[in-house]
């Protein structure tokens, strides 16, 4: 295994993680760390288990083996209440936005605030407006998810993920279904969030342009061996890795 990452204080640590559906192992023996304010990319070809790994990290699918530690606390060994405390520290942007379709955009963004803060409705409204304008959706408060475009839904999903100013943001294929310009705007927004708020970002992606533009660390999953075959800065991996699978992926099969 190649390891180009510097080992300093870990924010998220994955230890010997194995993900499986019944007896069918999707990924095995994953170990890597994500440092604070990293933009960490989970990459690999289609069907290599990127989304399954993400589900293991965000608490939707219990791993068959191994641990996921948030600041040293093992998520899957926690009591439900402690789990909730950890979950409150992160926001997730799902592939299609996953907005609650029965609620307006404002209600979508407001729900985390209503559930977890003691703010009064006026204050919540102010915060919601702020979050929506950060993603360029000012004035869309009263729209329902079905009334806006796919790209806008994604941005609204991001506004909701940021509602509680989370320490960690997870993105599932952020640029999927976006035009090149919107995809770049989203990349810039991710960098901005990291730089201004110090948010740790974990991105599942196979968009090379985006991977090289924002990622400062990454794990490369291989569908054939069903495990990780490299960790490190994607640009460094491109420059230094000799593994043909990694080279082939990072150069669109040209090398």
């Amino acid at each position: 295994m190649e390891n180009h990452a510097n080992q300093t204080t870990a924010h998220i640590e994955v230890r010997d993680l194995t993900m499986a559906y019944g007896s069918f192992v999707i990924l095995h023996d994953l170990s890597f760390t994500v440092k604070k304010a990293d933009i960490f990319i989970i990459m690999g070809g289609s069907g290599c288990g990127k989304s399954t790994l993400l589900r293991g990290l965000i608490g939707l699918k219990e791993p068959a083996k191994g641990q996921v530690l948030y600041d040293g606390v093992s998520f899957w060994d926690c009591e439900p209440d402690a789990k909730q405390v950890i979950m409150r520290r992160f926001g997730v942007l799902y592939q299609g936005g996953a907005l609650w379709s029965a609620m307006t955009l404002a209600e979508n963004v407001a729900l985390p605030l209503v559930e977890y803060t003691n703010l009064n409705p006026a204050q919540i409204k102010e915060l919601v407006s702020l979050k929506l304008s950060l993603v360029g959706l000012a004035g869309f408060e009263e729209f329902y998810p079905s009334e806006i475009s796919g790209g806008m839904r994604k941005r609204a999903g991001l506004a909701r993920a940021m509602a509680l100013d989370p320490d960690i943001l997870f993105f599932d294929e952020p640029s999927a279904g976006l035009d090149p310009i919107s995809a770049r705007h989203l990349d810039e927004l991710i960098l901005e969030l990291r730089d201004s708020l110090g948010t740790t970002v974990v991105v599942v992606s196979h968009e090379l342009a985006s991977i090289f533009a924002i990622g400062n660390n990454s794990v490369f999953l291989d569908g054939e061996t069903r495990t990780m075959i490299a960790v490190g800065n994607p640009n460094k991996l491109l420059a230094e890795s000799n593994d043909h699978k990694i080279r082939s992926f990072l150069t669109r099969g040209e090398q």
Partner: protein
Amino acid sequence: MDISFSLDADNTLVVRLGGDWHIEHGLLSAEELEKKIASTPHLEKVAFEGRGLGEWDSSLLTFLIKLKHFCTQRSIILSSEGLPKGVARLLHLASEVPDKEDAHKKVGRAPFLSRVGEATLEAVKSAGEMLAFIGEAFLALLKLLGGKARFRRCDLTLLIQECGAQALPIISLVSVLVGLILAFVGAVQLKLFGAQIYVADLVGIGMAREMGGMMTAIVMAGRTGAAFAAQLGTMEVNEEIDALKTLGISPMEFLVLPRMLALVLMLPLLCLYADLLGILGGGIIGVGMLHLSPAEYLHETVSALNLTQFAGGLIKAGVFGVLVALSGCFRGMQCGRSAAAVGEAATSSVVTAIVSIIVSDALLTVIYDRIGI
């Protein structure tokens, strides 16, 4: 689709292809050519002569691929030199990546015993899931009683409106007609004895004890239970339920609990309304066909009914409400991640609800009989 072949010197079979190859004209069988290849001794190479080829499409390619497989099996070289460039390239592309053997899905029927076994295991698993769901729903209910359940009050009012007021037209229609039918069937028989006045008893007791609750529940299973299953199923497909979970909000409290509450609160009320309209329907037959006076009919109905009978029906309606809501929500939460799965969830929620309504009705009727209600 012209084809001819001749044996050359140095053990080469030259295949001449000509004319237009179109998929609309069907696929040409390679059998004749294969026979020729198989029957030629010492054949080393198959070559093509494609100058006479007109337009061509996949029909030519499938023909060539079949031929290529056949030749490969017999270690005969298939030279694509004489083919047009496009054909040669596509042929190369199609045979470049070998078939991934484990990629083929096993099709075909499993033996009878293993199918029975699989179905049994599936049934056991599904029963377990249902029990787990009921358990979770109960815990959510306890949380509600403790004032700690998290859901939006405005969702509950909206659902109550959907399951209550908006169901009134269809419930009205169905229960008036059920009352009418009950009265009609009874009237034909009772008239024989000159006892047509007892139609009022028959309709009143029938509606209050049985038909009001059951018909309302069945209508609500089709109308609301299926809607719950489809709503929750679509939320599952769109990852909306995942989004709730990662926010630390239990979908059981946030989505299932208000739906259950709305149905359990509204079904007895709808049942009461259905009872009254059923009696009205019976009255139409009594007055219109049996020439009873409205006052007579009303008086007979009032004297036949008592509160216990209404209460028995309303308790049943409450139980049916729980069952309809449970099966709708259960099937919705269990839904797979595809459009077809949402359809299946809606269908199976109705089936589960109706079966459980009838079974529980039978049980309750026996229990009522035992305790003498």
